């Protein structure tokens, strides 16, 4: 249930770390990662299930990019994307899972 989303999040994070460790990130890398994260968060908005922490992470990513710290910025943007995906997964799961909680 929730653990599935958690596993996905953990995998996403570990892959993110592996991908960016080889080369230093550029401003373009950040722009791409940020755009992906924003798109995912917009999808979460479409299912009315955005998390406040996703927006916070996006903000942190932008702040890091503005300071020229593109490695950090990309990591943060990827984390934000993972959070957004987790929130979408939560919404999809809950569409059927909610009935289990109804008082009987």
């Amino acid at each position: 249930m929730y653990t599935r989303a958690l596993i996905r999040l953990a995998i996403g994070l570990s892959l993110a770390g592996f991908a960016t460790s080889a080369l230093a990130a550029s401003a373009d890398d950040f722009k791409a990662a940020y755009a992906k994260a924003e798109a995912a968060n917009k999808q979460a908005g479409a299912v009315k299930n955005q998390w406040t922490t996703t927006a916070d992470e996006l903000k942190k990513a932008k702040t890091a990019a503005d300071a020229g710290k593109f490695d950090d910025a990309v990591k943060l943007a990827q984390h934000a994307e993972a959070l957004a995906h987790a929130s979408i997964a939560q919404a999809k799961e809950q569409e059927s899972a909610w009935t289990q909680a109804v008082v009987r």
Partner: protein
Amino acid sequence: MLRKIIVAVAIVVGIAQPLLADNAGSPETDFKMFRDYFKSRFPKVPMNDFVNGPYSMDEGLRKQWKAIEEFPPYEFAVEQGKQMFATPFKNGKTYGDCFANKGIGVRQNYPYFDTKSGQVITLDVALNQCRESNGEKPFDYSKDDMASLTAYMAFTSRGKPMDIKIPNDPRALDAYKKGEQYFYTRRGQLNFSCASCHVQSAGDHIRTEVLAPALGILNAMPIYRSAWGGMGTTSRRLRTCNEQVRGVPLPAEDENYRDVEYYLSYMANGLPVSGPGARP
């Protein structure tokens, strides 16, 4: 023999399935199950006391509340609401002209399902509709002006039993069901649903607060919250709850919020309006 057993088991399972299919309930059955749940969990709480939220769950809190109610902090809001009701709009009409019985003693009928527009109309929405149809700008749903109006209207209905109707219209039933779904759906990074706190953990503590039971939870709205040092409408509370579980709140009076208010208000049918309320 084995065949007979297999068939028997299959029949039993076949019959049992619909009983466990939770979504098949009608509002009437939901109502009974909801009420029975709280009755069995809190057998010592008188049915009408559930509308007092955390005070029905904790004796120490109740004593403090009784002391506060000697000089209720929402008095100013009720007074302001009364004045607003008495003040005509620029076109000469008043709030009373938009409501049955001049808006006095009608709060227990809200929200209702408007078959014309096909949506749930809460009291707050009805008040803004009244303003707009009389050439006035609508109020922010989370701010004091709206709270003063609903505080006054709630005050004139104090003690009256909630009387929410679900008309024989599939759209109304759909809105009710959507409200039920919203109530039980987990959201936010903390993965809580309304039910997580107000059904499963009703009467328990969340940090220093005692959690109110979902039964009759909206009967005291709008509330003066000591934590806010001011009044809060239903919209303000729902949106704050979303934020507290790290979910981005929807716009005030979003369809989801109206539907969940419809569902919860129906569940409280027969229980008295206790608003406006004072909460920690």
